[in-house]
């Protein structure tokens, strides 16, 4: 699916640029976006190295396993396919908590570590497992308490009440996250009907 979509985006863009006889916009945006992506990745290198370093200490101290055990009553229902005290659960909780608190920079390394742990008990290594899909759907539709960036932009634009959108944002994300969990469990049940081996 990604293959088709990715190719589609680029083909449409090039054909459109030719049709408008502005081929230079393609060349320019390739230059801009390639350097932007490497810059982004370089910023991520330091953060990833630091947080995965700290997390390795946490894991060796047994904290990730402990966290997975504590949240087990909740995660057992959301991630039925993972063993009940799987280390991925600890990282999933860290990732979601960081997202809710608006600590996006810390959230990414936890999330990637969760994926790595889930991949260990995935039977088909090139295909997303049920647990991975649930995690990513929850991750991308996660509840937001403080949309810090946008509050800053509103403040800069001279808003009378920059933080007044906190409530609407919180409620919209609640609806989004609950719907995501509901849709995910619906699809999972439907796809796995009659199949008890998962």
């Amino acid at each position, binding site marked *: 699916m*990604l293959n088709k979509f*990715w190719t589609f*985006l680029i083909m*449409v*863009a*090039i054909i*459109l640029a030719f049709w*408008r006889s502005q081929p230079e*916009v*393609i060349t320019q*945006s390739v230059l*801009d*976006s*390639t350097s*932007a992506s490497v810059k982004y*990745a370089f910023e991520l*290198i330091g953060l990833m*190295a*630091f947080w*995965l*370093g700290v*997390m*390795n200490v*946490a*894991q*060796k*101290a*047994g*904290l990730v396993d402990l966290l997975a055990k504590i949240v087990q009553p909740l995660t057992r229902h959301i991630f039925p396919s993972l063993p009940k005290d799987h280390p991925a659960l600890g990282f999933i909780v860290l990732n979601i908590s960081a997202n809710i*608190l608006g*600590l996006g920079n810390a959230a*990414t390394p936890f*999330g990637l570590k969760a*994926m790595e742990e889930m991949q260990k008990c995935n039977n088909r290594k*090139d295909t*997303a497992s049920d647990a*991975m899909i649930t995690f*990513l*759907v929850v*991750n*991308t*539709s996660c509840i*937001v*308490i403080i949309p810090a*960036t*946008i509050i800053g*932009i509103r403040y800069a*634009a001279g808003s009378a009440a920059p933080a*007044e*959108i*906190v409530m*609407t*944002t919180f*409620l*919209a994300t609640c*609806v*989004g996250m609950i*719907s*995501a969990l509901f849709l*995910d469990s619906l699809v999972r049940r439907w796809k796995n009907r009659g199949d008890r081996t998962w």
Partner: protein
Amino acid sequence: MVAVISALSDWAIPTMILLIFGAAIIRHVNIYEAFIEGAEQGFQLAVHLIPYFLAMMVAIGVFRASGAMEILTILLKPITDFLQIPSDILPLAILRPLSGGGALGVSTELINTFGPDSFIGRLASTMQGSSDTTFFVLTLYFGSVGISHYRHAMILGLAADLITFLASIFFVRLFFGY
């Protein structure tokens, strides 16, 4: 309320590091060696992810630069008019799951053009704050473990984005009385 939560975010990271190192001292973990070992993994992972970032950002970049986004907005106009969604917000709704930087640019522009306390300004703020770069997150996370078959992850993620988008419109109308 806002101040409390904001302070909580500031304290969260240092407190977490303190707790982790404290527990590690009690358990006699060699903290420095464990840190280096993990950091090395993090370094490799970040480098491994560069092609995924690059592929996604180039595709979205050329798509936007070519003017395809404007055409998509015109094509979707009948649907959004029927649902009484203001057409000014549509480029943001389309861009939000695809490109974090791009969406932030568009929402900043909307806030500044229409004013932060207008309907469009509040709606753009809520939408920008409530949704994530779904497409990018999926590419990155699946890419990191070498998964190429996403199954129903993409469609579910985008469906959740659509629901969040509609919920944003509903709550902004409800709270600010439009």
